[in-house]
């Protein structure tokens, strides 16, 4: 089976969960044979891939261009008309959108949910991951098996009871409830990923720090956290995008004052057709942060998504 893990993690030198994320930008190893083959069918392949790429881009481009047209133009014709009459392009929809308090408040809520839910998962997950990797306590292996079992638990099984629970303690509809739910369901993967990464930190480093008189907490802050940087970054980015993009959890646990942008836009979808001037720019605004994160942290994002897609 080791061959399989090699195949997935991208090389025989697989050593860490993050360093080995298959980079999007590895140049193909061009051997003589593949170069010859490339020349043979290359033209056709290039055309095919170009068509596919355009096909893949089209929906997003359509959204962007729709968001830049006036409601009148939107209801009269398709976004591709922009190419023949570029004067249609306008930022009016965005200006209207940013004056819409329901939308701007919900964007702010998205940040208020996402940032704490990410930080909490990173901190709590690191603490537990460190304990599982380097501490000894009764039943450690069983506890960890429990965590691994929870990796694939669908959020759906918890919705009804947690809604009740939050109702009982009075945080149903509050941002804190949404944050806590996301944190709890982010933890199994966080602990799993970080424990595996921390476990590979050389023992000598920790022992040396210990000999210098560092206590557990100091060890954790000064040695584990810095060395775990790549894994923590990967986890953080994945969790950030996961929470930012969530709709279901917030749909249930947030109310109209605490709802994030996804829920606010979802309510607009019901009148789809008459309000594309709100929906299109709204959807695009909600995509900006994920897209920036995606382009800025490609590598960590890929490894995080690959590791956590199963959630």
């Amino acid at each position, binding site marked *: 089976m080791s061959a*399989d*893990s090699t*195949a*997935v*993690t*991208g090389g025989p030198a*697989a050593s860490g*969960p993050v360093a080995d994320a*298959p980079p*999007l930008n*590895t*140049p193909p190893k061009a*051997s003589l044979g*593949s170069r010859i*083959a490339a020349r043979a069918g290359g033209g056709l392949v290039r055309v095919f891939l170009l068509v*596919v*790429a355009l096909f893949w*881009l089209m*929906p997003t481009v*359509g*959204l962007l261009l729709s968001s830049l047209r006036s409601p009148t133009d939107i209801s009269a014709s398709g*976004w591709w008309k922009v190419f023949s009459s570029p004067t249609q392009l306008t930022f009016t929809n965005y200006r209207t959108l940013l004056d819409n308090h329901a939308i701007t408040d919900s964007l702010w809520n998205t940040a208020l949910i996402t940032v704490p839910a990410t930080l909490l998962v990173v901190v*709590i997950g690191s603490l537990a991951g460190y*304990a599982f990797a*380097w501490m*000894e*306590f009764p039943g*450690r292996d069983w506890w960890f098996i429990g965590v*691994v079992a929870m*990796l*694939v*638990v*669908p959020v*759906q*099984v*918890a*919705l*009804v*009871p*947690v809604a009740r*629970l939050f109702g009982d303690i009075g945080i149903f509809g509050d941002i804190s409830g949404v944050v*806590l739910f996301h944190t*709890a369901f982010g*933890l*199994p993967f966080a*602990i799993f990923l970080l424990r*595996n990464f921390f476990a*590979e930190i050389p023992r000598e480093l920790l022992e040396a720090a210990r000999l210098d008189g560092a206590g*557990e907490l100091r060890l954790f802050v000064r040695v584990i956290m810095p060395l775990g940087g790549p894994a923590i970054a990967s986890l953080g980015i994945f969790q950030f995008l996961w929470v930012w*993009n969530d*709709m*279901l959890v917030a749909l*249930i646990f947030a109310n109209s004052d605490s709802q994030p942008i*996804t829920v606010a836009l979802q309510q607009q979808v019901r009148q*789809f057709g008459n309000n594309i001037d709100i929906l299109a720019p709204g959807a695009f605004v*909600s*995509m900006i942060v*994920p897209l920036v994160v995606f382009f800025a942290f490609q590598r960590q994002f890929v490894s995080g*998504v690959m590791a956590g897609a*199963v959630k």
Partner: protein
Amino acid sequence: MPPVVDSAAGAGGGGVADAAPPLSGPPAKGPGRRRSLLGTRPWVAACFLLPALILLGALVVYPIGYTVQRSLYDADGSGFVGLKNFGTVFTDHGILTAVRNNAIWVVVAPTVATALGLVFAVLTERVRWSTAFKLVIFMPMAISMLAAGIIFRLVYEQDPSRGVANAVVVAVHDTFTDNAAYPGARPRPNGDLAPSGGGSFTTKSRASQGSPADLPLIGIPQNKLPSNAVDAKPAPPQPDAVTGTVWVDFRPGGTGKPGVIDPGEKALSGVKVQAVKDGKVVASAKTGKDGTYKLPGSAAGAQLRLPASNFSGKYNGINWLGPNLITPSIIGSYIWMWAGFAMVLIAAGLAGVPRELLEQARVDGANEWQVFRGITVPLLAPVLVVVTVTLMINVLKIFDLVYIIAPGNTQSDANVLALQLYLSSFGGGDNQGVGSAIGVILLLLVLPVMVFNIRRLRREGRR
């Protein structure tokens, strides 16, 4: 099943965490091995673990127990009903649609996404701009399913002048078929021109050279005529051809005579006229701007037919979000989002395939297809399984895309389990018993993967 999940596990954590290292790490450092630094007291460990355990206990473990119990009680939770809620899931007509759609989703979406990912991964190795290509295909993974849903609501809009999918379909359709120009047009009753089945109209009399055969039509509102329609003109008789005019035999104000081209009556341009002898089309022509047509002399003695393509309604594209196509349409949007995931994982696997093997096969005379089928795919099989299993688990819980893309009137046709769970428990269904039963079913469906994750962990530990 064992080979499936086993190889999934082989790739790092059981289709769970594909990029995570095998639990064993380089030299086996499983949970079974002592690795603790000297002297950590258990209460210190407890402090590190406490926040995680409290959250997991309260919001994951306890809810599972509660949901399992709740699934055995009735709608308002007061009466024990045993397995009745599960029976409801598999007998209720609406929920059964969800079960069936979920089955379609789980089979089709992962398979197609993986197949596309494989094709893309293999082909991008041949181009220099593979990074750009991968970015384009992978990008939809970064955005929310809500945004993707809105994007595809726009794509699938019915009106071909607004939805790009139907714009393309209609453009292709119209390239290969005649434009239907005048829906609703018909001859006057009891005229020479009469319905001849299938929406076409045929003359009773036979055409002859030299005497124009005029074909009057009515039933076209003035405002449905092309804005540039001109007045109809009588066709000049020609000795060696069959000629005539097709026009609207009606004038607002109603002063015209039936069957006569009165001044002010509009010509119908672009109408197809066929000459039919013994059921066979011997000649055909289209009317010009002034409504006149000209058939060759061979048309003499034939009946003249105006085929149905002149009158059928304008082709309006495919009803993507209608009851029949709604699930495939939404699956299409899912594939748009997730094919990139498959592609990136498979491309990573491809990087581990020894180049020499492929080269050797090519040197031995294998063509590209044979190399692909005989070497690449078998070597990638474990990765393909990981990707497919991962996508299956993901698809099992599909919610956002269906909830956003399906319009209200076809939501029930697009229903899936996670959506039904939401509707039953929170969306006005008022039956948390059934909702909980669906939750338990989802949990049971991922149980095999959970079990294999654990077995793999323990195997690593013992090594």
